[in-house]
C-alpha cells in the first residue's frame, strides 16, 4: 500500500554501503523503477533459478506496484539504510527531530514539515514491525519473537554501523514538488490528525472490526507481500495487487484458476476443467434486482450464500488493500453487477453493504474487477448504491478509508451529479442548500461539502457563503455529456429494502 514506508520514518537509520550478500529484508535501497531509481523498502528476499530477487515496496507508490526485482536493479553504489534495531520500542520525542542533513537536497527543503508526518508514522511502524523480520513468510512470525530477532541482527552489523550512528534518517520525498503543494499537504495532514485510522492498537482494531461490522482493515493487519502471482478468471489473466488469504498451498502456484460463476478456486488446470464440466451456475446465486441492455444487478445475502460470498471476498481482496476477511460474510449483502452474453452473467464488479450499518454507510467495499476498469462501470456501481439508499429513504456514504481509486471514482460521481444539479440551479437563478443537494442525490451533507470544497466551488465571499462554478468545470461537463456515458434507469430497479428481524439480528450473524 503505502509509499511512505520506512522512508519517512523518524528514528535515525544507520546507513552504509551494502553488498548483494549483506542486503536483507528491512533495508531501504535505491531500486530501479520505470527507468529511474527510487527509494524502496525490501520486504522479502528469495533465490530463484535466475538469481536472488527482492520484493520491493517503492516509496510513495501504492503497494499494488510492489514487485520482485532481480539483483541488477538494485543500486549498490548508493548507501543502504539498515533496519532499525529499536524500532519496536515505543517512540518518544519524534516531534523534536527537525531538519536533518540529508544527501538529497529536496529532503532538506522539507525538513520543517516532518514532525507532522512523523507523528502519523507511528502507526505505520507497527505494521512494519510485524512483517519485516524474516524473509520468506514474514506474516507467520509472532510479534513477540521480533525484538529478539532484531537485536541479533543489529549485533551482527554493529561494526559497520558504528560510524553512521549519528546520521539521522532522510526525509524520503524524492519527487520534485513545489513548495506550495507541499505545505498544502502538510496542512491537510495536520487537519487529519485525529481523523481516519489514527493510531489503533491491534486490540482496538479487532474490537472495532467486531463491533462496527467494518470490512476494511488497518495497516497493522496488512500482510504486505502479495501471495498469488497470477489468476485465470473468465477470459482474462489477472495480476493480483494485494495479499489474499487463499489456502496457503495456492501461493506456491504460478497460476490459480477461478471459476467465473461460482468463484471457486483451483490450483491446477485439471481440477478446474473437471469442475467446469459440473458447474451449472450461470449467474450470481441471488435475485436479479435490475436489468437493462447493458448490465444486471443481483442481490446476494452473505448468510444464505456463504460459500459464494466468501469466494467473492477472496477474489476481491486481491484488488482491495483495505478489505479484511477477518470476520465472516454473514452481516453483509452483496450487490453484484454483471454483464450478460451467451455464456452467462459475468461478474463485472460488486459492492457489499452492511445489513445494518451503525454509521449509515451504504457501501462497505466496492470493486470493479481489473479487466473491466476504466470503462465507466464504477460509476454504475456507485449510482446503484445511491439508488438503493434513495429507495430506503436514507442518505448514504461509502465506508472509509477509501482507496486511491475509490476516492477518484467517488469524486467523479459526486462532482458530476452535483455539477448537473447546480448548473441547472444557476440557469434558473435559484438558490440551493447543501441539505437539498444531499437529499436529491441521497448523499450525506458531508460528502456534498467535501466535493464542493474539492472542486473549489464553495467560497466565502462578501460575508456570505456562495457556490461558484468554475468555467472549466462547466466546459468539461458539457464535453463529458457529449460522450453519452451509460447510466442506470432507476425505474428498472425491482427492490424492496430487506428487513431483518431482531431475532435474526441476534442469531443470524
Amino acid at each position, binding site marked *: 500500500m503505502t509509499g511512505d514506508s520506512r522512508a519517512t520514518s523518524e528514528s535515525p537509520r544507520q546507513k552504509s554501503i551494502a553488498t548483494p550478500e549483506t542486503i536483507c529484508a528491512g533495508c531501504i535501497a535505491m531500486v530501479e523503477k520505470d527507468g529511474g531509481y527510487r527509494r524502496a523498502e525490501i520486504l522479502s528476499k528469495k533465490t530463484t533459478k535466475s538469481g536472488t530477487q527482492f520484493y520491493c515496496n517503492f516509496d510513495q507508490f501504492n503497494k499494488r506496484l510492489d514487485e520482485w526485482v532481480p539483483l541488477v536493479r538494485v543500486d549498490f553504489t548508493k548507501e543502504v539504510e539498515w533496519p532499525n534495531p529499536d524500532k519496536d520500542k515505543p517512540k518518544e520525542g519524534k516531534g523534536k527531530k527537525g531538519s536533518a542533513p540529508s544527501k538529497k537536497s529536496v529532503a532538506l527543503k522539507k525538513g520543517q514539515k516532518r514532525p507532522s508526518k512523523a507523528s502519523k508514522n507511528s502507526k505505520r511502524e507497527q505494521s512494519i514491525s510485524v512483517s519485516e523480520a524474516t524473509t520468506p513468510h514474514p506474516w507467520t512470525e509472532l510479534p513477540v519473537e521480533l525484538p529478539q530477532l532484531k537485536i541479533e541482527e543489529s549485533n551482527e552489523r554493529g561494526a559497520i554501523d558504528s560510524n553512521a550512528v549519528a546520521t539521522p534518517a532522510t526525509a524520503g520525498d524524492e519527487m520534485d514538488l513545489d513548495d506550495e503543494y507541499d505545505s498544502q*499537504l502538510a496542512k491537510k495532514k495536520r487537519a487529519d490528525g485525529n481523523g481516519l485510522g489514527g493510531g489503533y492498537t491491534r486490540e482496538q482494531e479487532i474490537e472495532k472490526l467486531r463491533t462496527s461490522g467494518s470490512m476494511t482493515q488497518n495497516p497493522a493487519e496488512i500482510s504486505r507481500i502479495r501471495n498469488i502471482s497470477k489468476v485465470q478468471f473468465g477470459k482474462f489473466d489477472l495480476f493480483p495487487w494485494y495479499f489474499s488469504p487463499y489456502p496457503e498451498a495456492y501461493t506456491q502456484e504460478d497460476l490459480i484458476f477461478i471459476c467465473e460463476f461460482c468463484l471457486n478456486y483451483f490450483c491446477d488446470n485439471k481440477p478446474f476443467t473437471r469442475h*467446469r464440466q459440473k458447474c451449472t451456475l450461470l449467474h450470481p446465486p441471488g435475485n436479479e434486482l435490475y436489468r437493462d441492455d447493458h448490465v444486471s444487478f443481483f442481490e446476494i445475502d452473505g448468510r444464505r450464500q*456463504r460459500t459464494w460470498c466468501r469466494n467473492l471476498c477472496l477474489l476481491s481482496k486481491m484488488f482491495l488493500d483495505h478489505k479484511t476477511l477477518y470476520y465472516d460474510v454473514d452481516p453483509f449483502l452483496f450487490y453484484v453487477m454483471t454483464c450478460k452474453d451467451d455464456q452467462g452473467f459475468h461478474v463485472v464488479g460488486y459492492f457489499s453493504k452492511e445489513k445494518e450499518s451503525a454509521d449509515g454507510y451504504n457501501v462497505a467495499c466496492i470493486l470493479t474487477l481489473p479487466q473491466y476498469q476504466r470503462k465507466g462501470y464504477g460509476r454504475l456501481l456507485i449510482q446503484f448504491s445511491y439508488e438503493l439508499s434513495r429507495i430506503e429513504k436514507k442518505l448514504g456514504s461509502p465506508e472509509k478509508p477509501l482507496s*486511491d481509486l475509490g476516492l477518484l471514482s467517488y469524486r467523479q460521481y459526486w462532482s458530476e451529479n452535483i455539477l448537473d444539479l447546480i448548473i441547472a440551479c444557476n440557469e434558473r437563478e435559484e438558490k440551493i442548500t447543501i*441539505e437539498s443537494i444531499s437529499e436529491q442525490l441521497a448523499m450525506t451533507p458531508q460528502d456534498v461539502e467535501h466535493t464542493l470544497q474539492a472542486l*473549489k466551488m464553495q467560497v466565502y465571499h462578501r460575508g456570505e457563503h456562495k457556490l461558484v462554478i468554475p468555467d472549466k468545470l462547466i466546459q468539461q461537463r458539457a464535453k463529458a455529456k457529449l460522450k453519452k456515458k451509460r447510466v442506470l434507469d432507476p425505474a428498472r430497479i425491482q427492490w424492496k429494502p430487506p428487513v431483518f428481524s431482531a431475532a435474526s439480528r441476534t442469531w443470524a450473524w
Partner: protein
Amino acid sequence: MTTRKVRFKKLNTKTQLPVLREDQIDPNEYESLTNEAQIQTGVEQAEENEYHLQSILKASGVSSDQEIPVPPPQESDIKYEQLYSRKVQQTVSYLRFSQTVEECVGCEYDMTTEDAEFLTGYNRGKKQAVRLSEDDFERLMECFERTAAFQAPFAVVDKAVVPYDAMMGALRELDDDKLMGYAKDIYEYWKTRRQEAGNKPVHPSLKFESHQETDDMDPYVCFRRREVRQTRKTRNRDLQSGEKVKRLRREIEEARQLLLTSRDLELKKQEALLIESKIFDRRAKIKQTKVKLGIKTNDEDLINQKVGKRCAFVALEIAANLLQPQKRKAVEPSPTVRPPPTPQLRVPLRPDARSVEPDMVLLSDKRADKENELRLDIESKVQNHQTWNKNHVDLTKGPLSPVSQSGFERRYRQVKAQFPLTPPASQEDAEPNEGNTNGSGVGLELMSHQDRSLLSPSPQPEFRMRIGRLGRMWVDRRGLFSEPFDAVGNSNDRWKYDSDSEDETDVIVMDPNDTRALKFRATIPLPPAHQLTANRRYAYPPGYVPRTGAISQPPIRMGQSQPQAQAQSQAQGTSS
C-alpha cells in the same frame, strides 16, 4: 497576496446558497477565495500522499488524462468457449435464484492431475466396461473426504485415519453397487493421498479459526465467526416468556377439549338423527295402519310424538353435558362454538304439548312473569325468616362487638364551644387518656373549628371516643350537620373561607398521627429562631444564607399546630 482576516461563519447545511458562475464574480477575487479548503479525502493518511494519487488530485477538476497505474490484466489463452460451454437462457422476467454453490457444482471433489494419472494407471489393462470413470472416481473420493471430515474432524491434530469399515455406511448411501467393487482400491489410494497431505483434506481449504493463539496474527485465518450478540436477560423477560408458555399450554389444552366435546356432540347428533328417522318410519307405519284400519281419531299423536322427541333430545344433550362437566367448562370460553341445539332448552315446554310451533311469547309477559316470580320468592323468604326467628332470643349484644370494659365505655358528650388555649401536644394527647373529661385531643381538634353558627339551630353535636383493636381510636359523632358534599371541592377547602373572625387563623384538618404530615413537617427547615442551634449542629459554611423565605411561607399553613410541629421537628432533629 494579502492575508485576509475574514472570519468564516460556519456554513449551515440549511443555508440558501446563491449559485454563480465563475464569470459572474470578479475573477481576481475568486482566485483569492479558493485556496483555503482543507479537504478530508477519506483515504488512509499514509496513502494520501502517494505520488500518483496526488498528481491527479492536484489537477482536480481538470479532465485528467492521468491514471493511477495498475498491473494490467491480459487476455487469457485458455479455451474459454470450451470451458464455459453452457449457454444461458433468455428470460423476460428478472431472475430469482436461491440455490447455493454447493447445490450447483455437483460432485465437490475435483480430480487433480495426480488423480488422473492414478486413474489411468488403475484402469490400464481393464476392459472398457469395467473401467472406473472419472465421475465415479470423484464420487468415491468425495464420499471418503466427507466421511473423514465428519468422523474425524480433528484429523490434522490427532492423525486419526478413518478406517475403511467406517466408510461403509456412507458408501452404501451412494446406492451404486458397481462402485462397491472399486471402493477398497480407491480407499487405499485416498489414504495415501491424505497421508501425503499431512492428514488434511486432499484439496487445500481455507484456514478457519482454530481458537489457538496463533490465529490472531495469521493473515490466512479468515472468516471468523462473529460473537453472537447477547440479548439482555432480565427477570421481567423470564417472567413474560414463562407466562407465554403457560398461556400457550392452556390454550392448546382448551382447543383439545373443544375438539373432543364437539366430536361427542356430533356423535350424539348422529344418534339423534337415527332415532328421528326411526320415529319417522314408525309414524309412517302408524299412518298406513290407521289409513288401513280407518281410524280417524288421535291424529294428534303423530305430532305430539315429535315434541316429545325433541324433549328427549334435549334431555339427551343435558345428560351428555352433565356426564362431562369438565368438558363443558372447556367449551365455555368460546360461546360462539356452542352447539346449535341448545336454544331448544329455552323453548318453553307447553304442558298441553299442543303444537310444534310455540306461541308467540311477548317480552312484556315474560317480564311480568319474572317479576312476579321474584316477588313471590322474596315474600316467601321473608316468611321463612320470620318463622326462623319466631322463638329466638338474642342473649349477646351483637356477637362481634369488642368485649366491653367497664369504665372505658363512654357516653356521648356534648361539644363545648370552647377553643383550647394551648393546643394539645399531639404526642401525648393523642394517646387515649381515660378520665379526661374533655375527651381526646383528636376530638377537640376535630370539633374546634366547627362553625358554631352552623350548629346552633341543630341539636347539640355530641361525640365519644372508643378504642378499637390495636389501639385504634374511633371518634363517633352525632348531631353534626353536614353540608351536602361538593363533588368538585376538596374536603379541606370546605373551611377555607369559613372563618368569621380575622383573628382566627385557618386550621387545616389533619391527623397528627398521619405519617405523611410527619414526613412533611420533617422537611420544613427550621425557623430563624432555631438557626442558632442548627448552626451549631451542622456548622454551615460561612457563605451559607439560610433561606428564611421558605420558612415564613410554608406551603401548607399549619395553623395552631405549627409551633408544636416545629417543636417536634426540632426534637426529632436533636434526637437523631
